[in-house]
């Protein structure tokens, strides 16, 4: 059972192994909080679209399914976008164009097509939650690494909590800014990819 869980995270991890959903993973992982925000948004959209696709799977015609999936997904993306802008404007600003772009996150269409369209509502719901949490875990880990090294804090929230100080004052004065810049994102993913290969015994 545990092995199964590990495999889900490592061997079939969408971001690290299949290299899908890369753009949001890199773009919004400059801090743990931003990453978590994106993760929760994806969990919501993924679960809801799985739910609706599965519930309506008997009435969605085979040849029109992809456009219909896209409409369903984009509905929830639009809801997320508007809700976030209204209640978490700071977060919405940080995530920017990547909130509406959740609509092209391959993971979501992939689960709708590959799972929800063929399974019952409870199964689709669990699948959506599970895949969403898997994605969130990776993006949150990347966001945490980048924030801890690049800013010296963890879970700082703009305009709110100033974050846990991980390394103390000396480091806070000279954090590795590189890590929260674009090249740092690529570097962290590269090392996580290599690590997951090492752990699964693929290399």
């Amino acid at each position: 059972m545990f092995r199964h869980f590990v495999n889900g995270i490592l061997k079939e991890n969408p971001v690290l192994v299949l290299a899908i959903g890369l753009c949001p993973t890199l773009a919004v992982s400059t801090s743990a909080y931003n990453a978590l925000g994106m993760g929760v948004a994806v969990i919501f959209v993924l679960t809801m679209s799985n739910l609706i696709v599965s519930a309506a799977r008997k009435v969605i015609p085979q040849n029109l399914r992809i456009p219909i999936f896209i409409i369903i997904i984009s509905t929830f993306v639009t809801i997320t976008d508007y809700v976030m802008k209204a209640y978490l404007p700071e977060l919405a600003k940080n995530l920017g164009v990547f909130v509406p772009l959740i609509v092209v996150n391959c993971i979501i269409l992939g689960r709708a097509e590959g799972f929800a369209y063929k399974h019952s509502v409870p199964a689709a719901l669990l699948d959506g939650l599970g895949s969403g949490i898997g994605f969130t875990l990776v993006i949150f880990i990347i966001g945490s690494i980048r924030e801890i090294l690049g800013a010296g804090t963890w879970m700082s929230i703009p305009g709110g909590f100033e974050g846990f100080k991980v390394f103390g004052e000396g480091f806070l004065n000279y954090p590795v800014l590189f890590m929260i810049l674009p090249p740092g994102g690529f570097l962290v993913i590269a090392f996580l990819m290599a690590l997951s290969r090492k752990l699964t015994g693929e290399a």
Partner: protein
Amino acid sequence: MLVSSSPHIRTKETIESVMYAVVLALMPALLGAIYFFGLRALFLTALAVISAVLTEYIYQKITRRPITALDGSAIVTGILLAFNIPVNSPWWLPVVGSFFAILIVKQLFGGLGYNIFNPALAGRAFLMASWPSIMTGRWSAPIRPAGSTMSGIDVVTSATPLGVLKYHATPEVVAKLNSGPMLKALFIGNTGGCLGETSALLLLLGAIFLLIKGIIDWRISLGYIGSVFVLTGIFYLFGITRANPLFHILSGGVMLGGLFMATDMVTSPVTPLGRWIFAIGGGVIAVLIRIWGGYPEGVSYSILLMNMVTPLLDRLTIPKRFGEVKK
């Protein structure tokens, strides 16, 4: 010419003789740095070299590869990295920079001969991205400054001559920058700047030795420094830059970059035509960044950017031999 095809020199003896020749060629500039900036220059250089060699050794030990940490190439990277930081840097700066240069830029790509980017320059860019305040703000004036040439420029916030040109260029200051004593100071090396880049004279001395030995290609050095000279000359005539072309080639990292970094045989093109394009492209980008960019100096970025183009330049300029089948 020593270099013939792309993944260059392989045999142990040639690598070592070439690398230690480069180390030797960098010695005048290192001695100059110690003279101009004090013993701390030696201390930082030693730290950078030790960090580079140790990183390579430990990596090769862990991955069970043949140990080549003392083939001289890591020493060259360490010295060049130290030459690219200001003398008042904290001690850990060269250590971290060398670590990044050797591990990420060189060894992950397969080690010497396979790296795409010049390790020392990428290491410098990493330091620049991470700690810009140390890399640009805390430069230190030489302990033997060039007399009155820089007086009239605020000593407390005074930056490198290039920084002065970019941020504090009042007419009197510009007149001083273009003056004979200033150019002489830049040539000798008793001006502010990164610790190994200031002395055009001592860098040229080492480079001539390497040119005679055929280790660096005059085309790259001439193309790089020459294009900076010509372009800034044209811009000077049109009033786009207020410093004369001599100031431009003697200041900042143009000499160090054009003589010792752009000429790195692993990361520059193989063919003469490719080298000309590489060098001139680099010079043009450096001037572009100096004049319109966000930093006072663009040498290191210009060479890194051209390093990326090197595989394409090789591909476009290597003549197809008769009977060669395209894979």
